[in-house]
């Protein structure tokens, strides 16, 4: 905190230029000629796309002239350049309509992060030691190309693996083509909070392997089974906008909103009624409601059609799901179930949604389908105020993938197995892009060993996280604001939307966008690769793709192509203005008629030894941990706990009292797969037999702001999966807790209730 620093800052911001003190290094640097024409002090707004979560919100970036230290042809110098200053929602974008969530706001810090990887790195020390040496791009590209061509020449291309966060649009197309052309298997996508189960369920029920879009704005009744749709799930901004309308948008009409979850989430906090059902029994509850509706003839059972056909016992009116039986299994009073059923039937359009923890159970798929059936019964599928699907997003990625191949890509744990066992064939080379499975997967999957087992690992990330620190070669990616971006929102809008955006600013460091790196490699390797990827740079590819899209949709023709391309760039994407609601196909067309038998959720850890359900949840600020390195996110208080810069363990006040645990005590949470320590947070809104913990902290290595901060709940998760999709059942672990001393809990908020002294005097 010395004065001089402040002077630099203030001088650079022009706030108090007069204070500018002399003798600062800036003064000794060379000054480059600006590469763009700028008017100092005047803000220009450039479109961009938020990449921090799968929602795909459109951005506009406030760019103003500033002086940055940049490297140009190997020299460090000062250059006046357009600097992104603020992110706002793109008012024209159909998903977020000019609004933005807290995470999106902080996206700015990805670009200016002090611990970004500024140039290509080559491992110089032991793996994982974090010792790298800086190298030039040519060397880096050559190195990677060499590795890949070696594989090709030895006919081992199948041993090339590509690990990435879920990709969409032209990036996906590029990667798929790259791998296909080089004879490698499809990319393994990994995100801790994936919705594979729901997509599968929707495919089975509605023939749409896609996340739903809810027309909350016109709904009169909403029941959510664990779906944190206002916080972190699916398309939070779009859903929040609709929620606002649902509450106060229609004069005189205000929908009722019921939340079913064992721990009050941000979304649950806004519900009119909170129901705590036993984890894993949400599907049962949904069918209980359906039972009453059918039984009381509020809706014809037959009306449910396809989705219901998949639920065993539906035609018989769900005999096993009478309120009393459901009460036994879920712990929700029969009276409540009946009441909810009547309310739902009485207030159409009504929406039932399910996501999050309920789907992260071993019976998640079944629960999802049960809820789908309930929606179908209520007749709210494909109806205004009901459950909708964004117009076939499969069609949206410009150019339907020529490279699309049969079969799902290998799931992460399978890839790990392959890398460890070497069967069916060893993994010789691994490319990692923007995924951090070492942090975000259960220890039992042994991802770290698996990666260490791969002879050559290259990372295309921007930060040294737990995964990329294991790499032999790091080719740092641009920050989103520095890159050409495109995206195809999967949900959140009822318009067909394909976003595209040119870079909002010049790169600060000598980094290179992942697509351009792959294109370079392709060019270097030549042969089928360069044939499959003929473009010089990614923007060319985007250009081609979007012009093609425009032509296919008849919005433009060969003549107007360039104007079309300019237009979509200028407004941040292309979206069909007229709203077409995509009616779900008949599920039987997907070819699956046989009903699924209900199954009870499996938990690891017996009730005696491990008395508590362990509920990790996505943090409002740090999401799945991929944002833990942003100081803004670290310092913004969590809305419910008000905690900053750390993790905590949420525990019911009565339970805490019984175990003699006070706010801030250090707890040890142990499962069969490990233990962690974190301070206790007394949390009134959680079931007595549940322990909840936010995901995001507990990074071993993830920049100065996140490293060795807090604990990582994922590190004690059981490796249970949902059998059909093979996606991780992260809510299926049981734990035991014990007090081990005094902890450190940094809270922004003080009193828990409006009149705390009343508690004090009790």
């Amino acid at each position, binding site marked *: *905190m010395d004065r001089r620093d402040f002077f630099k800052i203030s001088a650079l911001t022009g706030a108090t230029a007069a204070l500018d003190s002399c003798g600062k290094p800036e003064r000794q640097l060379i000054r480059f000629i600006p590469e763009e024409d700028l008017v100092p002090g005047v803000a220009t707004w450039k479109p961009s796309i938020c990449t921090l979560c799968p929602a795909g919100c459109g951005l506009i970036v406030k760019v103003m002239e500033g002086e940055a230290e940049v490297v140009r042809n190997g020299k460090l110098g000062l250059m006046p350049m357009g600097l992104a200053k603020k992110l706002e929602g793109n008012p024209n974008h159909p998903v977020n309509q000019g609004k933005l969530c807290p995470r999106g706001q902080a996206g700015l810090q990805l670009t200016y992060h002090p611990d970004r990887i500024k140039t290509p790195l080559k491992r110089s020390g032991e793996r994982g030691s974090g010792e790298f040496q800086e190298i030039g791009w040519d060397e880096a590209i050559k190195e990677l190309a060499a590795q890949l061509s070696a594989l090709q020449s030895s006919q081992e291309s199948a041993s090339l693996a590509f690990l990435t966060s879920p990709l969409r649009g032209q990036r996906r197309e590029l990667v798929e083509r790259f791998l296909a052309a080089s004879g490698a298997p499809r990319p393994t996508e990994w995100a801790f909070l994936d919705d594979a189960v729901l997509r599968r369920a929707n495919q089975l029920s509605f023939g749409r392997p896609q996340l739903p879009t809810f027309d909350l704005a016109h709904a009169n009744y909403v029941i959510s089974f664990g779906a944190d749709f206002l916080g972190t799930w699916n398309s939070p901004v779009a859903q929040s906008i609709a929620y606002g309308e649902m509450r106060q948008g229609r004069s005189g009409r205000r929908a009722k909103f019921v939340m079913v979850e064992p721990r009050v989430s941000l979304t649950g906090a806004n519900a009119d009624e909170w129901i705590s059902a036993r984890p894993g029994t949400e599907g049962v509850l949904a069918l209980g409601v359906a039972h009453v509706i059918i039984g009381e003839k509020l809706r014809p059972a037959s009306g449910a059609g396809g989705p219901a056909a998949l639920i065993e016992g539906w035609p018989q009116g769900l005999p096993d799901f009478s309120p009393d039986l459901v009460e036994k299994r879920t712990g929700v009073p029969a009276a409540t179930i009946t009441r909810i059923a009547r309310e739902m039937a009485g207030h159409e359009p009504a929406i039932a949604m399910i996501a999050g923890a309920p789907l992260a159970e071993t019976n998640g798929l079944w629960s999802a389908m049960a809820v789908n059936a309930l929606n179908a019964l209520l007749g709210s599928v494909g109806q205004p105020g009901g459950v909708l699907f964004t117009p076939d997003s499969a069609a949206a990625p410009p150019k339907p993938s020529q490279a699309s191949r049969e079969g799902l890509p290998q799931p992460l744990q399978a890839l790990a197995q392959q890398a460890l066992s070497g069967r069916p064939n060893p993994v010789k080379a691994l490319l990692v892009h923007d995924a951090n499975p070492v942090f975000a997967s259960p220890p039992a999957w042994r991802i770290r060993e698996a990666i260490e087992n791969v002879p050559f690992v290259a990372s295309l990330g921007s930060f040294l996280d737990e995964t990329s620190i294991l790499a032999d070669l790091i080719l740092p990616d641009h920050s989103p604001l520095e890159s050409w971006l495109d995206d195809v929102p999967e949900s959140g809008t009822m318009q067909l939307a394909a976003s595209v955006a040119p870079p909002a600013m010049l790169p600060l460091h000598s980094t290179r966008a992942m697509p351009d790196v792959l294109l370079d490699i392709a060019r270097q390797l030549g042969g089928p690769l360069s044939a499959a990827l003929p473009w010089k740079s990614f923007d060319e590819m985007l250009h081609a793709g979007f012009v093609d899209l425009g032509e296919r949709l008849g919005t433009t023709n060969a003549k107007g192509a360039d104007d079309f391309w300019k237009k979509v760039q200028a407004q941040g994407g292309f979206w069909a203005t007229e709203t077409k609601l995509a009616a779900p196909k008949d599920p039987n067309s997907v070819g699956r008629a046989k009903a699924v038998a209900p199954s009870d959720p499996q938990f690891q850890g017996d009730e005696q030894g491990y008395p508590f359900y362990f509920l990790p949840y996505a943090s409002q600020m740090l999401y799945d941990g991929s944002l833990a390195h942003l100081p803004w996110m670290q310092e913004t208080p969590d809305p419910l706990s008000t905690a900053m810069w750390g993790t905590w363990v949420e525990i019911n006040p009565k339970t805490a009292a019984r175990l003699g645990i006070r706010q801030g005590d250090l707890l040890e949470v142990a499962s069969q797969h490990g233990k962690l320590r974190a301070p206790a947070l007394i949390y009134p809104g959680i079931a007595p037999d549940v322990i909840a913990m936010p995901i995001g902290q507990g990074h071993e290595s993830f920049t100065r702001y996140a490293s060795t901060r807090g604990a990582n709940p994922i590190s004690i998760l059981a490796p249970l999966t949902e059998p059909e999709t093979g996606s991780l059942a992260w809510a299926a672990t049981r734990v035991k807790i014990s007090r081990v001393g005094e902890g450190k809990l940094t809270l922004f*908020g*003080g*009193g828990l*209730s*409006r009149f*705390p*002294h009343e508690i*004090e005097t009790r």
Partner: protein
Amino acid sequence: MNKTPEQMNEDLLRPVFHTTWRFWATVGVLLSVIAAAGLALSYQVWNGIGVWGIDRPAFWAFDITNFVFWIGISHAGTLISAILRLANATWRRPVTRCAEVITLWALMIGGMFPIIHLGRPWLFFWLAPYPNERGIWPQFRSPLMWDFFAISTYITGSAIFLLYPIIPDWALVRDKSSGWRKKFYTVVSLGWRGTPKQWNRLEMAMKIMAVVIIPVAVSVHSIVSWDFAMAPVPMWHSTIFAPYFVCGAIFSGIAALIIAMAIIRKALGLEDYMKRLHFENLGKLLLVMSLLWFYFIVSERLTTWYGNEPSEMAVFWSTQIGSFSPLFWTMVCCNFLIPVPLLAIKKLRTITGTVIASSTIIVGMWLERFLIIVPSETHKYLPYAYGSYRPTWVEITITAGTFAAMMLLYVLFAKFVPIISIWELKLGERKPVVSPQLSVVASDLPALAEPTGLATDS
């Protein structure tokens, strides 16, 4: 007491003329403490006030506590001595000067805090009203400005009030001394000779000052209390604060005076001048104030409790049974439970007794200031904004420094000025004579033969 003027001169001038090793030792120790505080202070100014423990919402803590505390102590002297003078309490004579000095120094120390507690202390002069390049005058609606005026008035008044009766004593020193002292005291005694006119003007001025300084003193601590009472903060925004603070101020003032006297008495060997009588009388005063203080705090708490206003109750309970309760009950013991018996029971109202009582009261009153300020800040209206406070070594060192500074200044004063007003003492020792006739009779009967003495204006 049966001391001739010569003895008095002898006893009371000794400290001025003779310097013992004890003097230097004391000065050394105190200086080192002050130096430590000085370092802490510069550390704070250099790095920013963040090195203190203050936070949000506890924006004020030790700093303002010390401010209020020392301003409170300052009410020892001037106020008390003024009252005693007006009441013409004869036993006051050995006490007044000790008291008035406390006022002066305490004011200087207390008045320092509004400056050093600033976030940007180097800009303190922006609080002073003077034509400046910013083209803007201070905000006279701010109680801090009231403080500025009240304290400067009070400090001027007290200094003058203290100085007046010193002049004749300095003249005395001048006559008794030689060398540099002679020169020095010749200057400072302002050519005092002792003509009836001078004496008369001096005493007249003293009377006026005594009348003026009392309302000033009262206003000063009322205004200090208004620093809090003017802010709409639970338990601050209260009408009782002004009298409550004044009472507390006199309370702690007397306690400080008693301690000071006890030390002086031992250190300078003035046992024959400051006798049990003085401590007893002051002890009685102290007892009254202690009861009065208790009365005030009870009425404050009682009204709050009955009012049952949620935000106030939050503060209330935090002090009664909450996180601040240990301090609160310590304070009650220090200010009431311990002193009252010590001062009420004649047997215990000895010099030792009163000194013990005073010491606990000093502690108690410091705590009281702290407990008035911090709990309210940390329990304002919106519970979400509740906070806590924990001091750092910096604040603690600075606080220690203030006490050291107080003692040092006191020691130095006693070095340059007879700590007891000699002429007033002599005046007091003289048998009071009501009229010249009687006086003549009293003075020497033989003179009766001479008519002149009687003939005078009869």
